[in-house]
């Protein structure tokens, strides 16, 4: 036991609020560092789109051409990209942080609370844009061309990345509300109605009945139209704007849910 109070020596460092940008980059760089160390979390996002792209082309190309699709490979490439980027997030890592207590450790620092989530989302944006690359390479290998050239490729990846980012709010909202890994894994189910009740396999004109009605309200319908236009039609802004608007709408909903969940998680009440 020490024998009494000890005078405090001069402080060796002067801590301060690092600032929002620094906090954001700190959280994002940690998340990006973790990705190659946990390859199992990324491999499905890498393999599934390539698999579906190849299988869909092999199985459906003749059928689709009969419905009026001239270049089914270019028609399918955006679908593969959507498969690659939708639902990819560090939400399961966030659940691990919550359950291990590391999330609390972060809350004990002066970090801006919003940076805890936005930093992860920045990392997700980098990851999903990187995940587009192998899909695009496979597309080029099977003969897909960009009518918009290299600027179109860049625009394509940015739009895909923004869509991926817009969707991440859902798994993060679930992670922050529940702190449950199982619930986060189940969030993948959200992806199915988005990805399949739309023009994934057939053009809009070929859809009929309830599927056509639902596809009209599915944001992915407009996203696919925007991406396809960059591949086959050029810079068609009447296709691009609705696609961007769809991203904004989905992002507004998912971010509202995610940041509401963050507020609940970090509240000290």
């Amino acid at each position, binding site marked *: 036991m020490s024998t*009494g109070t000890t005078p*405090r020596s001069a402080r060796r460092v002067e801590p301060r609020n690092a600032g929002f940008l620094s906090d954001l980059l*700190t959280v994002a760089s940690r998340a990006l560092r*973790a990705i190659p160390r946990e390859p199992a979390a990324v491999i499905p996002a890498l393999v599934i789109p390539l698999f579906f792209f190849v299988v869909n082309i092999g199985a459906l190309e003749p059928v689709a051409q009969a419905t009026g699709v001239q270049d089914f490979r270019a028609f399918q490439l955006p679908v593969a990209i959507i498969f690659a980027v939708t639902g990819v997030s560090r939400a399961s890592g966030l659940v691990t942080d919550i359950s291990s*207590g590391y999330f609390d450790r972060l809350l004990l620092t002066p970090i801006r609370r919003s940076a805890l989530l936005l930093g992860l989302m920045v990392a997700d944006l980098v990851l999903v844009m990187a995940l587009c690359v192998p899909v695009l390479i496979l597309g080029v290998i099977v003969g897909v061309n960009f009518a918009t050239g290299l600027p179109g490729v860049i625009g394509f990846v940015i739009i895909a990345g923004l869509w991926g980012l817009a969707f991440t709010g859902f798994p993060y909202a679930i992670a922050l509300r529940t702190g449950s890994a199982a619930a986060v894994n189940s969030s993948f189910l959200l992806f199915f109605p988005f990805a399949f009740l739309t023009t994934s396999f057939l053009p809009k004109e070929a859809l009929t009945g309830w599927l056509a009605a639902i596809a009209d309200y599915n944001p992915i319908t407009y996203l696919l139209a925007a991406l396809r236009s960059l591949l086959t039609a050029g810079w068609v802004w009447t296709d691009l704007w609705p696609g961007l608007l769809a991203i904004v709408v989905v992002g507004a909903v998912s971010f509202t849910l995610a940041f509401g969940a963050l507020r609940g998680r970090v509240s*000290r009440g």
Partner: protein
Amino acid sequence: MTASELAISVEGIVRRFGDVVAVDGVSLAVAQGEVYGFLGPNGAGKSTLTRILCTLLKPSAGRATVAGYDVDSEPGQVRLRAGVALQEAALDDLQTGSEMLALQGRLYGLTTKATRARVKELTELVDIGEALDRRIGTYSGGMKRRLDLALALVHDPEVLFLDEPTTGLDPVSRAKVWHEVRRLNTELGVTVFLTTQYLEEADELADRVGIINQGELVAEGTPTELKRSIGTDVVIVTIAGEPLKARHVLESLDLVDRIEGSGSTLTLSVSDGPSAISPIAVALAAVPDVTVIELSLRRPSLDDVFLSVTGEHIIDSGQGAAISGSQQSQETP
């Protein structure tokens, strides 16, 4: 001493979780440079109060300051001045120790150079040097605790909160943590608020001890004061046969102030142990159906203090003496 001059000031803090009152009107004061041991069984409210003081929880009522700043209205200032190692070592298994320390430094606005210099100081202070470049997933429990302690110290806090820092550690690792806490306090003057359920830990480390039970502070003082408060000496009697008969006879002796315990082991508080031991032995020898197995005399420990103020039992958990709580319903959520 005013609240702004104290390292920690707690005035009537209450924290409720629904109908459960986890902390019930606790008031205490910790001077700068002091090691304060907050002792209590599981679910007594130790961790809840710690989480309030380090800004993770809001109090339902009352006021508290840390390093002169209000934990409720100025949490940002408190976070810059308080270091915290919570009950479980909160780490990221995918990162290396160096990466985590650097990240922690950045969150406190330290430059890369300052962080590097600080990490060098800390590796000497908490003995984690060789493991720093390995991923944390490969660390032993003791190494994780030491890294957790280093993380809590990156920004050179004025007040260090340690929530059960040695729970689950082997005796060697526990001794290392104790050594580090002592060094932090004596060499660097860091105020330490230490929660523990290990009586030996509080006795070894704390300048003053507060005992919490069922959310209330039931005793407070230096370990010596607390021990003195329950009488001078303790006689432990282990018997075979009829314990009720033995207890009845012992209660009739004037020199016995108090009897705790039941079954075959009784703890007797006496004012003068050496003089009392013979009369106790003689009295027990005369009791039919009772055989004295062991009779020992010792100075009071914090175990005895805890027993006298709470009526709780002490168990040996294999980690040193620990307190078994009876209020599990008050476990910190």
